[in-house]
């Protein structure tokens, strides 16, 4: 395979990996707090978090382009204070992907926390464990299927995202040209062979990630089923 075909794929993998890790770190506490929020606050948070789900990603990308453009107030502020430029940079791709893939991580985690019986958390508190320890030792391990779903869906969705990365990334080879955009370019150039190859690899990666998720969850009707069967 040519180097030019590998680079967008590697960039997509890097972007998906970073986005998945960052969203996991951000969404675990956010989803936990949301699941414990007052009903109206919960509605508001879920609505905002799911906007990227229903908006065309080109719309989101357009607004990010407008908001973060070097001539915009926020763009100028980021540039002068932090020396950060988001438009047509990999950092900008990460920011865009964080927003567009947010529901993929957030929704399964919130659902997982909401479906846990409150008594699990209460039991840990009465055992004199802190809320942080309860979250990491009791609650998170109890929602492993939701965690796996969030991780796999975020990774796969970011791999295939097109609209935001086109708008804010600008398809600069080696910098912001990810696989989904590279396929578009190859098709535009009538280079169907290269497009086929990259599309097939993306398809294989997505299939592998999703089938692994479903396989693991099918094999996990409940937390790790080791030990003897029920003894009554």
């Amino acid at each position, binding site marked *: 395979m040519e180097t030019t075909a590998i680079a967008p794929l590697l960039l997509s993998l890097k972007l998906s990996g970073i986005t998945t890790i960052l969203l996991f770190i951000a969404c675990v506490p956010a989803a936990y707090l949301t699941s414990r929020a007052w009903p109206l606050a919960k509605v508001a948070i879920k609505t905002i978090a799911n906007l990227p789900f229903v908006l065309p990603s080109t719309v989101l990308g357009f607004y990010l382009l407008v908001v973060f453009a070097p001539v915009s107030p926020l763009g100028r502020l980021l540039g002068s204070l932090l020396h950060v430029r988001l438009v047509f940079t990999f950092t900008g791709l990460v920011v865009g992907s964080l927003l567009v893939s947010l529901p993929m991580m957030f929704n399964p985690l919130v659902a997982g926390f909401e479906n846990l*019986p409150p*008594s*699990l958390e*209460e*039991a*840990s*508190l*009465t*055992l*004199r*464990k*802190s809320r942080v320890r309860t979250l990491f*030792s*009791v609650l998170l*391990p*109890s929602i*492993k299927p939701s965690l796996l779903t969030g991780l796999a869906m975020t990774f796969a969705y970011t791999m295939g995202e097109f609209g935001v990365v086109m708008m804010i990334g600008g398809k600069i080879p080696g910098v912001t040209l990810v696989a989904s955009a590279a396929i578009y370019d190859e098709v535009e150039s009538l280079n169907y062979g290269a497009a086929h190859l990259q599309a097939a690899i993306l398809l294989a990666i997505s299939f592998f990630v999703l089938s692994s998720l479903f396989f693991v969850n099918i094999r996990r009707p*409940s*937390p*790790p*089923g*080791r*030990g*003897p*069967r*029920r*003894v*009554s």
Partner: protein
Amino acid sequence: MIECSLALTLSGEEGTIDLSVDLSAGDGEFITLYGKSGCGKTTILRMLAGLTTPERGHICVDGRLWFDSEKKINLAPQKRSVGFVFQDYALFPAMTVRQNCVYALPRGSEKSAADDLLDMVGMRGLAGCYPDRLAGGQKQRVALARALASRPRFLLLDEPLSALDQETREELHTELEKVHQKMQICTILVSHDLREIFRLSGKVFKIHNGKIAAHGAPAEVFGMLPASGSSP
């Protein structure tokens, strides 16, 4: 010694109930809260554990205030020394039986203490099992061992045997008796079962419409002997 006065308005299917009770229990006592569903028994346990906040009143344990509405004192559940056995047992699904008990041990404890407790409740042989592999009576035993592992000042049992068949209940009555005699922890049980109350309790508080209708030894409260006292 625990001494408390608790007041809270409860909303239920049958309208609102003004829960208002004064309770006291000495070291090593086994007392039972008896009353029909919705009268506030579980809420009393939850208020003692810090899981529900009373509107008015106080909870004083060995001269130390756990809660005082006037002085704005309200210790978090982690700061109170209670072992709570929930109706649904609330065993942590991602932990084995042994891990459930080890988790509950105070920091710095020998892990063998968990094995000793599992021995005491006859669950050492299933220490490697996950909770979903256990029958109801076994889960109850593990929940009891876990509650004791935190070395609580008080043991709060919220109808822990209500979902079990009569034979298993009888077995567990024996277990509870044995545990109470051995550890001499002040225990407060919520129960509807008169046989259970007569077998286990030294004192019973009969609750009706959120108030203590009678209290005393089981034989006194349930009419075999004159009631020793009542409150409005």
